[in-house]
């Protein structure tokens, strides 16, 4: 295994594009090193991104949006009060990944590129309408986060392409987001179902909404029918019922050791209701405590 620590993303991409064997980019390493040890993936070329200037930075842009470098850890997200205030759902999703030790290393970009359908960091990004700067042999491009997962363990990134940063839009007025997952214990587990809701209000009425479901399909789902169920409402009981029904209809889970398809489908509806209420409450301005954002709590 050859270890590379390039100083630019372009150089990192060139190494990957020019390699003939197995390559992996190394950010937090909390998936790559586990695969290395298990022998499931033994890279010929391992490209460490952490020496690239700015890769560990969180930047508030002039328009109020946020740029999160590819090697920013979950702990660093939670330690950035402005980001926690603007996008609590994104931060609390990533904050659920692994232990305190894992939080010190694991990254949003890595959680995305690992390609798990159950990734806790991803639904919040999809609901937020986040994008990624992707650097490849053809130059730089922006991709919607929703377009990157392609199936379990697979992404739509092309050979030689690497995520340089993730971008969150400006929060704007009267917006709120939230993420929750179901696990059969309280900590250190993989989502049976995850749900993120991001919405915007005009007064008490929802005028925009994005609802993402995790772990109920080969990739994260952005469910337009869920958004339609609550846009134009004040999230009354009828709207919540419609939302839950749309989430259940969209869920196409498998049965495995973590839950049956029937259970996951049911829980998708339960979580959609619960998370929408938290996002709505946050958008109203009172910071309701949703699921514990581990990084933020410390």
């Amino acid at each position, binding site marked *: 295994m050859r270890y590379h620590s390039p100083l630019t993303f372009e150089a990192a991409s060139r190494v990957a594009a020019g390699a003939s064997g197995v390559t992996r980019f190394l950010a937090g390493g*909390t998936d790559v090193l586990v695969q290395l040890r298990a022998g499931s993936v033994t890279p010929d070329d391992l490209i460490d991104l952490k020496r690239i200037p700015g890769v560990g930075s969180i930047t508030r842009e002039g328009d109020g949006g946020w740029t999160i470098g590819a090697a920013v850890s979950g702990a660093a997200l939670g330690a950035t009060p402005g980001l926690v205030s603007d996008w609590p759902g994104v931060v609390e999703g990533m904050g659920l990944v692994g*232990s305190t030790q*894992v939080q*010190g290393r694991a990254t949003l970009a890595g959680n995305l590129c690992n390609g798990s359908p159950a990734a806790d960091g991803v639904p919040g990004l999809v609901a937020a309408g986040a994008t990624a700067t992707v650097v490849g042999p053809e130059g730089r491009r922006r991709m919607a986060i929703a377009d990157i997962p392609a199936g379990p363990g697979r992404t739509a990134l092309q050979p030689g392409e690497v995520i340089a940063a993730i971008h969150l839009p400006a929060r704007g007025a009267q917006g709120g987001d939230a993420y929750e997952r179901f696990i059969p214990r309280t900590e250190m587990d993989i989502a049976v179902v995850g749900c993120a809701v991001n919405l915007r209000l005009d007064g008490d009425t929802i005028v925009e909404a994005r609802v993402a479901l995790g772990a109920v399909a080969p990739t994260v789902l952005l469910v337009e029918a869920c958004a339609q169920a609550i846009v134009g409402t004040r999230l009354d009981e009828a709207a919540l019922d419609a939302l839950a029904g749309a989430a259940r209809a969209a869920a196409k889970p498998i049965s495995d050791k973590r839950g049956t398809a029937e259970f996951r489908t049911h829980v998708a509806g339960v979580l959609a209701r619960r998370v929408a209420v938290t996002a709505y409450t946050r958008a109203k301005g009172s910071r309701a405590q949703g699921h514990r954002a581990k990084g933020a709590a410390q």
Partner: protein
Amino acid sequence: MSKIHVTTTVNGDAVDFLADPRETLLDCLRDHLGLTGSKEGCGTGDCGACSVRLDGVLVSSCLVLGVEAEGRSIETIEGMASPDGTLHPLQRKFIEHAALQCGFCTPGILVAAKALLEENPDPSESEIRYWLAGNLCRCTGYDKIIRAVQDAAAELRGAA
């Protein structure tokens, strides 16, 4: 397989070693530097027995490559007691409360608990339990560990 020369700081001392790029920081600490306090329980980031601080951040050293340590600063359990052998209050309270039995998880838990108390000198029981959720102990049932951390926190607050 060519080895890479790594220069880093461990517990305040400048050190260097030659690392195969596949070796973890835990391998390098134990096998190249003789610092065997950090343990390998799982090797996959689940158990916390290999916990160290990397530039002040609590990490599992089994999930860090040795070559990534170049130019960084590492703190291990070996740096916790004073050079004269005086134990850190956490170490003393672990003994007083019998917060260990076989002791395999103890170095990692002490390193993790010290990181917690530096960030949060007065954690609730629930905060301690969540912070240490990535440190598995098969002997104690955790209760004595939590009490030892609370007692050490109280002593450290009193001393401050």
